[in-house]
């Protein structure tokens, strides 16, 4: 009787795991099969390299995601430039410098930051960060890539802080003790011994934060102006791939070229996020193997 119960539970867990993999493969398959009909009408080179996305044009429909790819990378890059130094610094502070009482308060607060809905952050972008940017840089409005970068940095920060702190905490105590014994100061130990030792974990954290920033929709849709032109710099309005899908999928009649093209954009997004996550996973595994 007990053995049958064991077998059933084993089976349920196995089924659970297989289900998750099947969902992932299913999403990938759906994206591929719904995107392929688009490429009967659109040349692949035009799709990826043209910066003219105008499916509902007055004159001629065009489906080029070049400007959107650049926009997505711009806001992601901008957000990482802010979030990585801030995140690693916070993680180092939490794991080494903060007293236990401060750590008890600060760590949950950072985790709560991760739970703020993206619409709320987008709202803050329009109402608070946008006018602030406009005032500081003397430009007419704050609907640009800088705004998007700041907001995405806020969203990627908790991921980076959490995982980096875990990586820093798992550095063997012997390293720290050896460094201090050789006469290094606390500061030198953190910067020259601890962080390099935890580097692969920190890199994995940054890549996961990057994945979060790439896939963010509502925030960039509300706060970056969504102008489809190729952005000229960080102070122009940008339009990411995610906002394009969110804006247009509601109104597109099913099974038209526009519909298939939107799934094509989704496929590109899926592939990018998948590669980022897979890279971070490989790096993390290498780190875990080494530290054993």
């Amino acid at each position, binding site marked *: 009787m007990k053995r049958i119960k064991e077998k059933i539970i084993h089976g349920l867990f196995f089924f659970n795991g297989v289900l998750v993999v099947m969902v992932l493969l299913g999403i990938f398959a759906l994206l591929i099969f719904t995107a392929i009909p688009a490429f009967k009408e659109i040349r692949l080179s035009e799709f990826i390299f043209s910066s*003219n996305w*105008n*499916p*509902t*044009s*007055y*004159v001629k429909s065009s489906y080029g995601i070049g400007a959107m790819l650049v926009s997505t990378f711009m806001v992601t890059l901008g957000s990482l430039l802010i979030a990585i130094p801030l995140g690693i610094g916070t993680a180092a502070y939490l794991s080494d410098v903060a007293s236990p009482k401060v750590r008890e308060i600060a760590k949950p607060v950072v985790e709560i930051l991760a739970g703020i809905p993206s619409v709320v952050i987008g709202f803050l972008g*329009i109402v608070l960060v*946008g*006018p602030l940017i*406009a005032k500081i840089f003397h430009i*007419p*409005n704050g*609907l640009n890539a800088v705004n998007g970068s700041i907001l995405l940095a806020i969203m990627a920060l908790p991921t980076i802080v959490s995982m980096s702190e875990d990586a820093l905490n798992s550095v063997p105590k012997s390293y720290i003790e050896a460094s201090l014994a050789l006469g290094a100061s606390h500061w030198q130990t953190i910067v020259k011994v601890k962080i390099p030792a935890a580097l692969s974990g920190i890199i994995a954290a940054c890549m996961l934060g990057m994945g979060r920033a790439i896939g963010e929709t509502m925030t960039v*849709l*509300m706060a970056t*102006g*969504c*102008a*489809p*032109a190729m952005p000229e710099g960080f102070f*122009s*309005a940008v*339009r990411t791939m995610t906002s394009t899908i969110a*804006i*247009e999928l*509601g*109104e*597109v*009649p*099913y099974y038209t070229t526009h519909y298939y093209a939107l799934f094509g954009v989704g496929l590109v997004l899926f592939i990018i996020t998948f590669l980022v996550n897979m890279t971070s996973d490989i790096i993390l595994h290498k780190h875990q193997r080494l530290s054993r």
Partner: protein
Amino acid sequence: MKKYFILFMAIFSLSLTANSVFAQNMLQIKGSDTLINLVQKLAEEYMEKNPGKYIAVTGGGSGTGIAALTNKKCDIANASRLMKSKEIDMANQRGVNPKRVVIAMDGLSVIVNGRNSVDKLSMDQIGKIFRGEITNWQDVGGKNSPITLYGRQSNSGTFVFFRDAVVKADYSAKMNRMNGNAQIVEGVRSDSSGIGYVGVGYVKEARGITVLKVARSAKGDYASPLNADDVKSGEYPIARPLNQYIDGSTKGAIEDFIAFELSQEGQRIVEQEGFFPIPVDYEDFNEKSVGL
């Protein structure tokens, strides 16, 4: 025993939600952002007068509403533009026979920031501005600052109507595409060199913005959308009917609500919300189209 008690409580509490989940014959209305506040107010009044009837109104833009009607996902589509012949064909292919009702008149308002000295423009000038051919306020009599364009997204009926009636080409790729009328008003209010277009119901109580007077040609008379007579007579060049589309083959609860919208009570609410009541020739059109 305890296990069965918990199971019973779970099923019991789930069954309590049944009343709201299976709400009888909830009328689904989707579509135009220009119409959403107006139709929500009409729906609220109607539900107050007819307890037991439920109406759900959501936005998403005229394009989204029309697509939902075509895909049989809503009963009434709010549309601030007309259905294109391609859309009507697609609806017929899916077994839907769209019938149009006009429920209000709108004077599409072009707004600028309150501190902008420009207070009137011709249709030609507005077209050039939104095509991106005029890029500085000094070219139309204002001060030397680059123009920031605020418009809607491609799922919006107002986007399509303004493009076909005024811009007559594709919009400038640098135009910021905002999520709705309210966001355009906010954007223009906080940007001293902004210009945008919104339904007249949204400028009724707005502060910090100027509603431009528009003339058909530079030598003609300038008319304002806030003047009901100009809108009704056609003096104001960008007046348009606000429509609802229904599937011609359905009747009953939908007809009752539309009759309420067209009644004196309904038209009074239209005026309260800042739009204009239906002129006589559209009343005749409604008679012919749906018999109301």
